[in-house]
């Protein structure tokens, strides 16, 4: 994985010193809050419901054990002993203090981390497939390019005051595990006509008030030309994106207004005029960076292990964990271990400092020092040998990190919601907890099978509810928390935005509604058919009818019909 060299380290130290100076000038009153706010946002510091929130970048979701241990230390020393992993593969600390943040940034700089551009109207953390480099369906490892994009976009002087935030995601596998089509720019590694790999470039995806699936801007771009092409897109957006209305400032609005053909024309025209040689990386620089991501020298081994097999027979929980949370690795005899942060009853995506230390320790001892953060707000130990799985499981189990629900209904993606966030209309965590509780039974959850359930506490959609197979959106209905349910979204190659089923539900009825939806699915599914496929086959009506349609079903339905 990438390690900061002298230059990167000096850069981050310099930036930390700069922010320390900016904080001092704010505290002394030399700059006002209005002038300080964009600066603090560019360093990842938000003012939230209860306190400042510091969002730390985890570039393309990759962490070393040392870095994770440092995050644990920061959680203990400067926060309340825990952190929250986000849908952008970042970590958030919810109890930051402005006067301590420069010290926190120094601690981060010590391990080659920072909070630069995790907020504000600038290019944010570029996210990637969490299984990059180890997935069996990988075409090419996207991480070198994710690192290159990171460097290019960091304090890029032309693009720090964009019309709005800008999010880039990149994937290099057959399955899109980075939700690229819901990003401002989505980059996919594809094979060209001659068998060489290049990039398919998509733009204008997003969640929020106007969810959009990204449109193809360029079907094949030679890899060496990525940065200049990105710069062309950014410049068109910077110059022509709307700045008059906060809710109409994303690039998706510009693309929809111009139409994809005109947008593409503007980008290609800009690109054609650029002095690309001075922007695109020389081959040696690419190779220097790519060298950090060479595959580990893992020795292939047997794909069966006696200890694992025996334990699977005798321990149902371990068996379920193997079945759900351990995925096949590129190298025979290894597994990709999903570390679930979704134990029913806990806050989805949160990890305590102790839990972080446990995962870091396992990465050190068994995992070649590497951890990943997923878009679904879980962690991953991507390189665990089969022979070590039992030991890893037992250690994780002691720390409550073995819920066997990867990609199942209780693997809920949820934003922090009104419990933490200034923007929220409603709480998302208690809703997630109740749903997880209802589906905590392992055999029930596995019978339901793969299902993405996403919860957002407001229309900003940080929980990505639009792309959930089941999406739940918190709304404010006459001052009380209500929840609107959508069905049929997907964040993958078959990207789709979910459709609203009907009127919203009060908080206490949401879990019942989800149970009704699941019951409808089970009643109608074909053998082996997953939720999304059933929904696409039978459509919205059976679900709508089950939730709202029957006036004789009782007071709940009556109330909802009245609200319709």
């Amino acid at each position, binding site marked *: 994985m990438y390690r900061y060299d002298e230059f990167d380290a000096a850069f981050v130290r310099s930036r930390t010193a700069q922010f320390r100076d900016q904080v001092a000038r*704010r505290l002394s009153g030399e700059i006002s809050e209005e002038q300080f706010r964009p600066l603090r946002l560019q360093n990842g510091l938000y*003012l939230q419901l209860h306190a400042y929130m510091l969002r730390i970048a985890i570039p393309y979701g990759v962490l070393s054990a040392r870095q994770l241990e440092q995050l644990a230390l920061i959680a203990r020393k400067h926060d309340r002993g825990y952190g929250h992993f986000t849908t952008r593969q970042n970590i958030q600390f919810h109890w930051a203090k402005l*006067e301590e943040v420069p010290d926190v940034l120094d601690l981060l700089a010590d391990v080659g981390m920072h909070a630069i551009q995790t907020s504000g109207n600038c290019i944010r953390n570029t996210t990637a497939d969490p299984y990059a480099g180890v997935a069996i369906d990988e075409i090419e490892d996207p991480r070198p390019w994710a690192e290159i994009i990171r460097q290019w976009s960091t304090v890029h002087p032309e693009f720090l005051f964009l019309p709005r935030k800008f999010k880039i995601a990149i994937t290099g596998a057959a399955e899109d595990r980075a939700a690229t089509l819901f990003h401002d720019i989505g980059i996919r590694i594809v094979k060209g006509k001659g068998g060489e790999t290049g990039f398919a470039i998509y733009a204008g995806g997003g969640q929020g008030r106007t969810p959009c699936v990204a449109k193809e801007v360029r079907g094949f771009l030679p890899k060496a030309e990525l940065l200049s092409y990105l710069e062309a897109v950014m410049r068109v957006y910077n110059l022509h994106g709307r700045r008059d209305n906060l809710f109409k400032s994303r690039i998706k609005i510009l693309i929809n207004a111009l139409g994809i053909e005109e947008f593409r024309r503007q980008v290609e025209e800009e690109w054609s005029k650029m002095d690309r040689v001075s922007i695109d990386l020389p081959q040696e620089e690419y190779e220097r960076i790519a060298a950090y991501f060479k595959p580990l020298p893992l020795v292939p081994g047997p794909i069966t292990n006696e200890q694992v097999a025996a334990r699977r027979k005798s321990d149902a929980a371990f068996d379920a964990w193997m079945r759900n949370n351990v995925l096949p690795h590129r190298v025979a005899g290894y597994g990709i271990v999903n570390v679930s942060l979704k134990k029913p009853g806990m806050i989805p995506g949160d990890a305590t400092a102790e839990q972080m230390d446990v995962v870091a320790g396992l990465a050190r001892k068994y995992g070649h020092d590497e951890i990943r953060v997923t878009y679904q707000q879980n962690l991953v130990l991507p390189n665990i040998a089969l022979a070590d799985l039992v030991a890893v499981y037992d250690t994780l189990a002691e720390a409550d990190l073995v819920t066997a629900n990867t990609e199942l209904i209780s693997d809920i993606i949820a934003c922090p919601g009104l419990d933490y966030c200034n923007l*929220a209309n409603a*709480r998302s*965590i208690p809703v997630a*907890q109740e749903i997880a509780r209802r589906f905590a039974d392992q055999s029930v959850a596995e019978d339901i099978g793969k299902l993405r359930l996403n919860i957002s506490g407001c229309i900003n959609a940080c929980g990505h509810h639009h792309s959930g197979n089941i999406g739940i959106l918190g709304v404010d209905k006459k*001052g009380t928390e209500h929840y609107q349910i959508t069905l049929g979204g997907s964040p993958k190659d078959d990207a789709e935005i979910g459709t609203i089923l009907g009127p919203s539900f009060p908080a206490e009825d949401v879990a019942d509604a989800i149970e009704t939806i699941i019951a409808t699915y089970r009643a109608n599914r074909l053998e082996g058919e997953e939720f999304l496929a059933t929904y696409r086959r039978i459509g919205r009506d059976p679900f709508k009818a089950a939730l709202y349609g029957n006036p004789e079903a009782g007071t709940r339905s009556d109330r909802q019909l009245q609200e319709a």
Partner: protein
Amino acid sequence: MPNIITANLLRSGDVVYFAGEGGWVRQISEAKVAYDKEELAELEEEAQRDADQNLVISVYAMDVDLVDGRPEPRSVRERIRATLGPSV
């Protein structure tokens, strides 16, 4: 109406409520209540001085209900905020 003023301390980010001469307090029940527009305007002016002195940020007025003469938040958001932590 009635209203109180709330903000966050600049340095720590702590949620605080304006208690007039009592300064800024953590417990909403101790906040000074404004019963009409004039009182609110006065309270806002005083609170703004502390913002200008870089003590607090994000100063705003919020609706309250009076229970036993003490202010309690009216909105869900402010109810959660007044507990000084998440509901979970």
